[in-house]
């Protein structure tokens, strides 16, 4: 793991990282990865992953919700009336 790998991950995870944290993370990652690397030794060839998935969808029926619109609007960091304000995208 090198600084540039940390930078790639930070880009993917949308995290702005200062230089000193990137340095520290290189060391911390090697410690953690060294520990989790023991999984490489486990024999799992015979495991067939067939999770017991089932459909947990519900019918699309009208039910009363407790959400009230204003309590959600109030959480917006930036708003214009009832609109959520974001930076220009295009």
């Amino acid at each position, binding site marked *: 793991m090198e600084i540039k790998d*940390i930078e790639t*991950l*930070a880009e*993917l*995870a*949308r*995290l*702005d*990282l200062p230089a000193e*944290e990137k340095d520290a*993370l290189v060391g*911390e*990652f090697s*410690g*953690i990865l060294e*520990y*989790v*690397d*023991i*999984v*490489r030794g*486990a024999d*799992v060839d015979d*495991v067939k*992953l067939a999770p017991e998935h089932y459909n*947990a969808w*519900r019918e699309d029926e009208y039910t009363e919700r*407790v*959400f*009230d619109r204003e*309590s*959600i609007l*109030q*959480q*917006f*960091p*930036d708003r214009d009336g009832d609109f*959520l304000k*974001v*930076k*220009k*995208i295009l």
Partner: protein
Amino acid sequence: MIDTKNLTIEKAHEAIKNGEYTCRDLALAYLKNIEEKNKEINAYLEVFDDALAQADKAQEMFKNGTAVLMTGIPLAIKDNILFKGHIASASSKILENHVATYDSTAVKKLKQAGAVILGRTNMDEFAMGSSTETSAYGVTHNPYDLTRVPGGSSGGSAAALAADMALVTLGTETCGSVREPSAFCNLVGIKPTYDTCSRHGIIAMGNSLDQVSPFGKNVRDAEIVLECISGYDKEDATSTPPQVVEKVKAKNMKPEMKKIGVPWHLFKEGTDPEVMENFKASIEKFKNAGYEIVDIELPYSKYSLAVYYIIMPAEVSTNLSRFDGIRYGFSTSGKDLVDVYKKSRYGGFGKEARRRILLGTYVLSQGFHDAYYNKAVKIREKIKQEMLEAFKQVDFISTPTVPVLPFKLGEKMSDPVSMYLCDIFSAPANLSGMPAIALPTGFSKTGLPMSIQFTANHFCDQALFDLGKKFEIIK
């Protein structure tokens, strides 16, 4: 003067019913304890201003005969459990101003029962930690020794209960986050079978592992709280339908459950000698009480913590992608939209959260996905299978709850792996979905609490409570 130190839910219920004191008196007694003790312990982040109004409502239930055991019981909830109209911040700066817009199912059920929610408690940020030191709102101190950690991530709830600032408390578990602080604060903590309690309205860390989990000063209190908050919930797609629960329970529960398996090989190294001696002494007590102790081997369980530190960050990096500074929570301005995301996420998430997001991004990234995530998922299946196999032979699996004694504040903060190792015995229960209970077993020479853990088969939570009550008599 209410003796909060020796109070139980049933005693409080009887006292209110008999008119010895009111729900308001009881809430006031705990509020007084909070007033006196919270400054030095920092268990509560906020005491809700409607606590006494809730108590008055509970009193009405006693008057009109609808009171149940939880009515009027003052409790605290971890800061990642939504309570409509109140802040739920997951002890993160990124949610410092986040007001819950709905009730979690756990809170909904507590409200229906007339419980009094006094406030919200400190935790490791987004439940990421084993010491409550990663909170954005300061560390919580262990009431048994203020220079030491209370455990984590539900350390605030543990410390609040241990210092009699609530009669019971709720935490959440992803990997030991209730059992480990129970061990460090001399409490009973149960991680129920996965999806016994709905995860609806719980700020997610690792969805396949998370579970609301109660703390009690005794087994019966924890049992009463769990009964109150558990049950099928259509708002949680992984909630188990009652007919399935009953079927599995009928298969796994036996009339007599007296065989305890001990996987000695898992903890012969790395366990504090005093913890080990204490564990052996507790096992001896079970033996003397007529339980059969059997050596068992769980060869794949030695991988459990490593597997956890792959699966959990993978789920963390996915879950925490929703916090972007746009719709709610902490937000910083930037030159464009992506810059707003990056700056808000850097400014809002603490160091441990950032580390786990990056680790999760790594184990899920192209080229590493197979070696880490897919491999971990397969080992997880192996661990579950070997535990199911073990439960054909024994009724319980026992280990120490934590391999170490409560450590000093700051001691493990610079070494993530040594912090992670506190939860080494916790991981199998979360990975397999099985229930596990932590029971207090006395104190070290230096006066620090110790604990024993029992795991049972799926939906045998009741067997753990029964065993715990037995231990309260024989210990």
